[in-house]
């Protein structure tokens, strides 16, 4: 087979018809404050880990809601659990608890 140097493109569109949002549902049941984020960015702005890595609690939650659980679970390991985001959140989202629930999901969600 001749290698033309092309590969098929993976669609980058978010397809909510096919998205698996089970983790989002599970988290909302376990900690209802998961649903209350208004994406203001206070958590990420104040994040100790986020100053040096790409980690963002807000983006992680957003990924989970879009069905990208795998990426989100990998992200959760970057958090240092310092809790500054919990102090900053204007909607009282229990950020640290959600991080630990996502970490647990790593081992329980297929």
């Amino acid at each position, binding site marked *: 087979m001749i290698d033309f140097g092309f590969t098929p493109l993976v669609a980058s569109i978010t397809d909510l018809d096919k998205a698996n949002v089970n983790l989002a549902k599970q988290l909302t049941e376990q900690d209802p404050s998961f649903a209350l984020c*208004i*994406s*203001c*960015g*206070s*958590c*990420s*702005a*104040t*994040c100790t880990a*986020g*100053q040096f890595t790409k980690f*963002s609690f*807000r*983006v992680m939650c957003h990924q989970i809601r879009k069905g990208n659980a795998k990426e989100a679970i990998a992200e959760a390991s970057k958090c240092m659990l310092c809790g500054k985001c919990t*102090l*900053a*959140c*204007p*909607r*009282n989202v229990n950020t640290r608890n959600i991080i630990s629930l996502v970490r647990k999901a790593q081992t329980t969600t297929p």
Partner: protein
Amino acid sequence: MTKTVAIIGGGVAGLETAKQLNSLGYSVKLFEKTNTLGGHVAKWDRLFPNKRHASEVVSSLTLSQGNTQTLTETTVHSIKRENQGFVISANSSNHEADAVVLATGFELFPAEKKEEYGYGLFENVITSADLEQMFKKHGKPVMASGHKPVRIAFIHCVGSRDEKVNRPYCSKVCCVTAVKQAIEVKEALPNSEVFCFYMDLRTFGPGYEDLYKEAQSKGVTFIRGRLSESSEIEGGRVLIKAEDTLASTPLKMSVDIVVLMVGMSPLRSTNKLATDLGLSINADGFIAATDLHTNPTGTATNGVFVAGACTGPNNITDTVNAAKATALDVHNYLSR
């Protein structure tokens, strides 16, 4: 016999209610705790959406008072039901009235409660109300040192939509006020750089969206992210941090002046008067309406009415409308 109505509060709501009840032939007593009429509006320089001078609105309201008996520097301590009417004790004397209107307004959110923003700690962190005073005095913002600011940041939602300071509600008018003030800064100091840090821009009223567009075309930069903290750096300048949520990256910048868009908070003293009269307070801390949709100006207590921002954040137009509705309710009650 002419019936008497006592109106508590000499701001926009109180003045408009007084004006209407006056023209309906009632004897009106207006109680105002400070020495000036016009409430918060009297302290403002110009108004959204048309940048009209606030003093025009205040003088139009105060000049059309007719026979209203205005009692300034008079604090109402208690209102008691007696016979068919009410006894209002204010300063050291008692006044009788057949109906009472609470038009006590709001207080600005005390910005120092949001400690991480540095109000009261850093000299170039000011509030939207402080900026109006600067516009009144100098026609432009000035740094505490007297220097001309080059970079100014407006921080939306200070004391609004924030459960950490027990103010979970939107104060409605701060977004458009920030947009208005950003334009005014650009007009006064054309070489300045102006930034608005917002979460959602709620420009709901007539002409507000046009104002937003005007700000964009005048070069105001809008950054979608809530301020997390500020700190003072050399020269009294301020370093602020937020997340640029549209780019998903943390963001920091140094500015000469930070303007905190303070929201509207319920007045504790009003709520005491209200609860003593049997009125209830809603979840946000303001006086609760009997029916949010069909009776926003009535209360559970016969003869007691409410008008304006003591029922929740409001702009001038909606406050004037509420006051007119209240006056009609009072009239219907007294002529029943």
